[in-house]
């Protein structure tokens, strides 16, 4: 076998393994952040209700609650999808690592088939996960921006916002959520790219089945 093919396959497998693992981690973080922000924003409301008063809800708080709830719900879906995809890739990578540098042609072909089947089986899930990842990334970005707002109001024809750059305590959390948003969007783009490559490979497999059929027909007894 061409060594380049073996190395290319192992390189792609390694890359996809890392992306799947990162995806799983960020999905869990989306849930955690969602819950954390819901608790943080809802606490004054609950305390007010206990005292028999419904406190006024600034638009920033409402928006953050909605985004946090979306982040939590998306995170649950995200974790489910990510776990399925990651589990399969992990098994293939384990088998590939066990072969190390002494894999035969057939062992590598076997791994390629396993990867193809893993993609076929989880194609729909990967498409949905790309969408969920994108929405999750947007939620994180929006939360990152909202975290750094001191004041926000909108009217029918205009709006005003003030960034709170003097409150240094807000900067780390804003940067973290912005960073997570960007990485989530990058993950989403990676999954999209992965799908494009493997969709082409599936088309190539379908078109090359003709060669296999012709080779078998040569030997019909």
């Amino acid at each position, binding site marked *: 076998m061409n060594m380049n093919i073996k190395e290319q396959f192992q390189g*792609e497998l390694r890359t996809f393994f890392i992306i799947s693992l990162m995806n799983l981690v960020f999905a869990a973080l989306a849930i955690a952040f969602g819950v954390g922000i819901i608790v943080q924003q809802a606490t004054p409301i609950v305390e007010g209700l206990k005292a028999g008063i419904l406190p006024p809800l600034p638009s920033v708080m409402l928006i953050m609650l909605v985004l946090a709830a979306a982040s939590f719900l998306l995170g649950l879906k995200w974790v489910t999808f990510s776990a399925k995809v990651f589990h399969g890739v992990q098994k293939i990578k384990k088998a590939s690592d066990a072969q190390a540098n002494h894999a035969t042609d057939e062992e590598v072909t*076997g791994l390629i088939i396993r990867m193809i089947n893993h993609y*076929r089986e989880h194609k729909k899930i990967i498409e949905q996960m790309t969408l969920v990842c994108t929405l999750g990334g947007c939620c994180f970005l929006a939360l990152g921006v909202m975290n750094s707002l001191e004041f926000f109001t909108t009217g029918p024809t205009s709006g005003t916002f003030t960034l709170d750059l003097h409150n240094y305590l807000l900067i780390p959390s804003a940067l973290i959520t912005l960073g997570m948003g960007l990485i989530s969007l990058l993950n989403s783009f990676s999954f999209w790219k992965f799908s494009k490559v493997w969709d082409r490979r599936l088309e190539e497999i379908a078109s090359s089945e003709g060669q296999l059929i012709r080779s078998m027909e040569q030997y019909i007894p």
Partner: protein
Amino acid sequence: MNGRRTPYEIYWEILVFCRTPRTFTGIINRCDLNSRTGQEYLTFLVNMGYLTKVKEGEKTTYVATDRASEYITLFSRLYQNLFNTIPGFKL
């Protein structure tokens, strides 16, 4: 191997595994097939001349013929070409 394998991928798995004589049970366990579909695939491969059925007393084994090597080689080449002809996945 799981997932929606094509018949050609299953033929390849069976033929590679049957390079040494294998029993029916061994083949369906290794290739993750049920008895009915396993029997259909083995019957097809025997009829095509890719497998030979060998009876040793009460024991029946299947072994790949020389013709099977051509199929295995062609199949491996086609699948490995997926990485030659299509740009790979890189970040």
